């Protein structure tokens, strides 16, 4: 591809996205280099790494990564590939270790990636530079409210600047609870024949599909009129998005409180109710009066992190080429909630989302069918339409960013405009 080909990927105003963007391996090669190679990518939540030696394995796009807490108490990330013959040195999803040992010749590394020993060394004479034989580090790491990100881009802006006003929306959940949040258990992992951007776009602000695709469950949901009355699609910075309801100042606490929207509340459990109402009563002190009135829907952090508010799940869309995605979903809960409350809250996630979810079975169907519609060469001149609500987004007295109605597709236009600009500037830099 050459620079001018980008005109046939995304129109200048983002309202037209050409189908090849979802199905062309040449486009994915550019994304890997100029988007996944340059952005901040979500790695894990710091609650997954409590003690020195704790580690998890994950991916940055399709690069296998070990994230671990070192003896220095800090989080480190390195590529899970031995410097000798390239095998993965860590072979489990999570755990606690002193050393990672490559199975092939037993080269070993500390959890933070330094080379610890080469067993064959004592039989050879030539000197070697051990400093360069450690695991390749992820050069930049940063954390916001427990969310740990890494970047391959040494010169990337600070995570705070990268998130910008998205921090206001992240705070309204991730800073809402007295003792913060924690990720419990192992993520659901799920391989789908879909492009990585479609799950992202779905959870960046696509509230509009809810009552239709999910009509079996959401057709009569009280959430739908609430979204019509109080819902906003917020774009604090191009590429990020937050679909929220800003509940009225006089709304009853039980109509705002996080956790009461979903299957768990049907239990009528008094401890559950009192814990969540107490969180809501204290919320304004932590996140201000506007933050406390936020009742979120979906969040997205560019390029591939999503968060579902009511269903308390963080998810990352790991690309596997243009036509496949490995979708990971973690479960997030208030850290100080009693175990019985956490167990009840889990049903807000597992009944609806994840590979077995009642709602997500229709989403995954759509993402896979959309790939088929994107892979029709005769349709190369018929881009997909993202123009709903175009020009109607504007400022808001209480909410940062550009704000549109729940049905304004500006969250996607801004995402694809940034996507195009990131690839274009990467191609220009590369000559």
């Amino acid at each position, binding site marked *: 591809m050459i620079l001018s080909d980008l005109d046939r990927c995304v129109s200048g105003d983002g309202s037209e996205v050409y189908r090849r963007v979802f199905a062309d391996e040449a486009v994915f090669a550019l994304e890997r280099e100029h988007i996944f190679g340059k952005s901040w990518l979500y790695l894990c939540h710091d609650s997954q790494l409590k003690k020195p030696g704790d580690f998890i394995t994950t991916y940055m796009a399709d690069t296998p990564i070990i994230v671990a807490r070192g003896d220095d108490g800090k989080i480190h990330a390195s590529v899970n590939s031995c410097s000798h013959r390239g095998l993965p040195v860590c*072979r*489990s*999803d*999570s*755990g*606690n*270790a002193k050393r990672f040992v490559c199975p092939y010749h037993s080269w070993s590394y500390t959890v933070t990636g330094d080379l610890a020993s080469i067993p064959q060394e004592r039989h050879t004479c030539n000197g070697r530079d051990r400093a360069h034989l450690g695991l390749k580090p992820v050069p930049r790491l940063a954390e916001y409210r427990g969310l740990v990100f890494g970047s391959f881009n040494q010169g990337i802006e600070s995570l705070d600047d990268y998130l910008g006003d998205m921090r206001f929306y992240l705070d309204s959940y991730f800073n809402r609870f007295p003792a913060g949040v924690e990720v*419990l*258990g*192992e*993520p*659901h*992992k*799920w*391989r*789908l*024949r879909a492009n990585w951007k479609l799950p992202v776009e779905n959870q960046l602000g696509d509230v509009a599909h809810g009552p*239709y*695709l999910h*009509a*079996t*469950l959401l*057709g009569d949901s009280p959430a739908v009129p609430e979204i019509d009355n109080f819902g906003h699609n917020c774009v604090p910075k191009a590429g990020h998005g937050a679909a929220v309801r800003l509940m009225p100042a006089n709304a009853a606490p039980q109509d705002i409180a996080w956790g009461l929207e979903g*299957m768990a509340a049907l239990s009528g459990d008094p401890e559950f109710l009192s814990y969540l109402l107490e969180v809501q009563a204290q919320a304004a002190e932590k996140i201000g009066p506007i933050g406390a009135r936020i009742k979120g829907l979906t969040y997205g952090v560019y390029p591939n992190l999503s968060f579902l508010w009511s269903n308390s799940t963080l998810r990352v869309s790991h690309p596997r080429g243009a036509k496949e995605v*490995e979708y990971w979903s*973690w*479960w997030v809960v208030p850290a100080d909630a009693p*175990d*019985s409350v*956490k*167990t009840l809250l*889990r*049903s807000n*996630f*597992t*009944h609806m989302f*994840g*590979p*077995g*979810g*009642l709602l*997500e*079975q*229709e989403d*995954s*169907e*759509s993402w*896979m*069918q959309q790939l088929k519609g994107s892979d029709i060469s005769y349709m190369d001149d018929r881009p997909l339409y993202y123009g709903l609500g175009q020009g109607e987004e504007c400022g808001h007295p209480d909410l940062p960013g550009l704000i549109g109605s729940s049905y304004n597709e500006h969250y996607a236009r801004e995402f694809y405009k940034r996507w195009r600009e990131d690839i274009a500037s990467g191609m220009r830099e590369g000559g």
Partner: protein
Amino acid sequence: MDLNRDLHFEVEQFYYREARLLDDREYQQWLALLSEDICYVMPSRYVAQRDHALRGTEAYLSPEREMQTETASDLPLREENYFVLAVRVDRAFKPTAWGDNPPARTRRHVSNVELLGCEGDELKVVSNFMLNYSRHGQDNFLYSGQRRDCLRREGGSFKVASREIILDWNVITAPTVALFF
């Protein structure tokens, strides 16, 4: 109940009937085979770190260490009661159940039925299954796993009082596990 050939035959016939109802999309009749206090769980499986203190013992390799079940700090794929299963059945018969429109062609094969023991009117049974799932022309997927059941004797038949579905995947490579297993 005596764990004899007659009982084994009866349990097998129960499972074959259940598989036929599901493959024929007669989910309402299938729901009637479940007890209303059913506990229906599908653990997720992850790649657990080995515990070298257990080396040399069978516990070292036990699949149980790979399971995310319904304890407070775990994340199973599914954990449902009768109400949620009834919602799933109800959903399937609505025109807007797009994940099942058109419906998948499925074929369930139940095998390795083993009666583990009984207590009162409850019977512990494990069995294996293969499920072929075919949608949209060439989209074919194979599910493989184990079911760990508690069957309760009720009248001349059984009801499923609890079921744990162990899928043989770490990364799910099918479009959905929101099926009836």
